[in-house]
């Protein structure tokens, strides 16, 4: 395991210290608990937005705390859902009286921990609602499971619900646009290499030099299947096929595109992937309104990427275009 760390057990603590040292104008940490909030939280007259999840997905989620996006992020241990007391403190810290929306990625652990926190906060009379993001189309038989995972599409929920909340909209309205995003966003990812949870010390799976994993999540877990490595154009075709047919996205639709690196993928390769994504969308007469290429929702040092499409209407376009100013997501 080659990592730029000190002690595997203290990576989350030290990362948070480095994060706070880097962004003192954006972020502060609650005392005695791993909760990162907007420096100016609670923001008067604004619904509070809380998200979170295991660490290892940087810049998610603390990188999205700031103007026009989240009010608080709860970083758990690496790939481990944060605990209810973190979310509970976060909810209290960002509630300005207009209520709080929890943006949860659909994992058993995240959902259960957030739900316990919500119960705790509601018991104190705080208005708390939640949305569950489940954009990953890789898992098909989701009727038998607890449903699809939430992956990079979550960042669009942060952006758009964040813009709506920043406008001063009500909790109900913020939740409505968040759910609109969730209804219209789909993603799928793949990996060339696994990643290593620092405290585990070993990669979570192994791949041969000529193999790749298709349909991975963002926790270093194996995907839905393994294949011989292919040209990126073929890989993109496969992922796009699954994504497009799922909603489905249709001729005449307008979409936002996110090409998300998993942590170890050079930007050059993400752009090469985007080339084919743009080509396919053009062929299908689906208009690209905006494209984001970079690392938004990662899996430590995993090499691989995911594609996300979000179908837009006029409301979503305006909210997507709205100003955002956070450590990892800035839009003028």
């Amino acid at each position, binding site marked *: 395991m080659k990592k730029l760390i000190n002690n595997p057990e203290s990576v989350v603590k030290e990362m948070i210290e480095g994060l706070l040292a880097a962004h003192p104008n954006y972020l502060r940490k609650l005392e005695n608990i791993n909760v990162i909030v907007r420096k100016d939280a609670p923001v008067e007259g604004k619904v509070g937005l809380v998200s979170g999840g295991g660490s290892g997905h940087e810049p998610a989620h603390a990188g999205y705390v700031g103007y026009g996006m989240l009010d608080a992020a709860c970083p758990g241990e690496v790939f481990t859902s944060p605990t209810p007391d973190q979310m509970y403190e976060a909810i209290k810290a960002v509630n300005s009286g207009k209520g709080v929306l929890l943006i949860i990625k659909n994992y058993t652990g995240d959902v259960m921990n957030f739900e316990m926190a919500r119960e705790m906060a509601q018991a104190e009379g705080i208005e708390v609602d939640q949305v569950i993001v489940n954009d990953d189309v890789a898992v098909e038989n989701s009727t038998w499971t607890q449903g699809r995972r939430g992956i990079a599409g979550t960042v669009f929920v942060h952006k758009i619900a964040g813009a709506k909340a920043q406008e001063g909209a009500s909790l109900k309205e913020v939740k409505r646009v968040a759910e609109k995003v969730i209804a219209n966003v789909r993603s799928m990812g793949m990996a060339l290499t696994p990643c290593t*949870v620092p*405290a585990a010390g070993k990669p979570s799976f192994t791949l041969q030099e000529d193999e790749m994993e298709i349909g991975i999540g963002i926790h270093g877990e*194996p995907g839905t299947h393994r294949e011989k490595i292919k040209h990126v154009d073929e890989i993109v075709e496969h992922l796009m096929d699954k994504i497009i047919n799922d909603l489905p996205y249709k001729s005449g639709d307008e979409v936002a595109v996110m090409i998300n690196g998993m942590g170890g993928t050079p930007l050059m390769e993400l752009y090469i992937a985007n080339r084919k994504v743009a080509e396919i969308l053009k062929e299908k007469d689906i208009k690209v309104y905006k494209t984001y290429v970079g690392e938004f929702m990662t899996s430590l040092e995993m090499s691989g990427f995911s594609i996300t499409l979000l179908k837009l209407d006029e409301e979503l376009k305006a909210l997507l275009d709205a100003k955002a100013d956070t450590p990892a997501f800035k839009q003028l």
Partner: protein
Amino acid sequence: MVITKEDVLKVIDKIVEVIRENKEYLTELDSAIGDADHGINMDRGFEAVKQKLATIPENSDIGTILKTVGMTLVSTVGGASGPLYGTAFMRAGQAVQGKTELTEEDVVKIFEAALQGIKDRGKAQAGDKTMIDSIEPAYKALKESLENNIALPEALKRAVNAAKEGMEYTKNISARKGRASYLGERSIGHIDPGATSSYLMIKALADVINLL
């Protein structure tokens, strides 16, 4: 047979020890079908439990002790297993609230409450390839044995065997709950890490009681 508060604390100590010993093993199981953190999570949680129990008032009853374990697990384990085991211990504590000694019946109640807590929280059932596949058979074996007037140590041994069988059975089925469910058929052939940690905890309980 009567189980004292000290016995309960011994059981918890034993669990702390067994989880520590199996930290890597549980993580390895989780890396095959999950995200390689189950042993790390459990060990962090029970390490916190050990610290926490050292600070609670001398005169705490067993219910309070179990609830403290549960709350500590909820706030330190994280992931899926945190709320599940946390709820299990909190419910178990409620079931024996105020008691400073436990009867055989209380032990059954503890299992029952813990199992129900996990089901309420996680909405899973037997056969979904989760911790329930160890706990439910163990609970049933324990209950049936005691109903048939088998002594607690022996009844717990049977519970351990049932948990073990249940745990091993998870190897043959595909997951329908938790992270492993995303793997679909690929999860077949691997033992569930949560079913394993449950088995280890039940075995720790039985081992301590057997030595009394």
